[in-house]
């Protein structure tokens, strides 16, 4: 059997936030369904994908319509590897205030990175900070 049957690869250049999300979500969710990811995994991955793409357009590209976001997904039965790259200067995620601290709790934004880290098995911001690699590993059944 060819390797292609065991792995879903998806790579797109996203030029617009709305179109990007409308393109990516069904493709990823279809692959998750095909490889037997449960509802909890689908919830987590959908959330992380959404947060990362929104951050790339809004914060990375500053909603500059001339800038794009590159999305890559490699999905198989064991893990989901996602990469989202914007055309901004990059940032240091360590500088983001903790949204769960009392003084930040009532700020209506700033939770995206925290949610990504909470739901993904592995999150890495690659230099210069305009590319995020997120991995979700399917829990091993007991």
């Amino acid at each position: 059997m060819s390797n292609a049957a065991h792995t879903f690869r998806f790579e797109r250049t996203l030029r617009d936030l709305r179109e990007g999300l409308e393109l990516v979500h069904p493709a990823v969710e279809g692959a998750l369904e095909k490889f037997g990811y449960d509802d909890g995994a689908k919830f987590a991955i959908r959330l992380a994908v959404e947060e990362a793409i929104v951050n790339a357009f809004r914060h990375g590209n500053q909603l500059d319509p001339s800038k794009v976001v590159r999305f890559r997904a490699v999905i198989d039965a064991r893990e989901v590897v996602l990469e989202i790259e914007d055309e901004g200067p990059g940032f240091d995620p360590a500088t983001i205030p903790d949204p769960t601290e009392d003084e930040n709790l009532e700020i209506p934004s700033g939770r995206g990175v925290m949610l990504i880290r909470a739901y993904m098995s592995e999150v890495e911001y690659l230099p210069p900070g305009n590319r995020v690699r997120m991995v979700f590993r399917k829990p091993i059944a007991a």
Partner: protein
Amino acid sequence: MAVSPNISVRKTDGHIRIDFVDRNVLDELNIHQIGEEMIKAIDGEIRPKVVIVFRNVEHMSSAAFGTLMKVNERVKTRDGQLRLCHIQPRIHEAFVMTKLNRLFTIVETYESAVASFV
């Protein structure tokens, strides 16, 4: 009952009930419009008692949390009360993870939400 594109608003027994219309996802693509519709339903009300029913909502992004916070703030400025109910466990977990369960009054059912108003 008023029906906006994304929510239905019922004013009954001294409170406002808001349900999502054909919405199992509250995310970047729809939440801003939904927030505007909610605020429109609240504005003009004196000391509004508002229940938002999350039945059938299966996905929620951080944008939705932000919008709910704005709605909560608008209710508070009108000296009102807001309750969230019928939240699925995975979404409730996200409220707890972000500690936003401390900002909102979350109850299990619509009936318990109505009973909790003072």
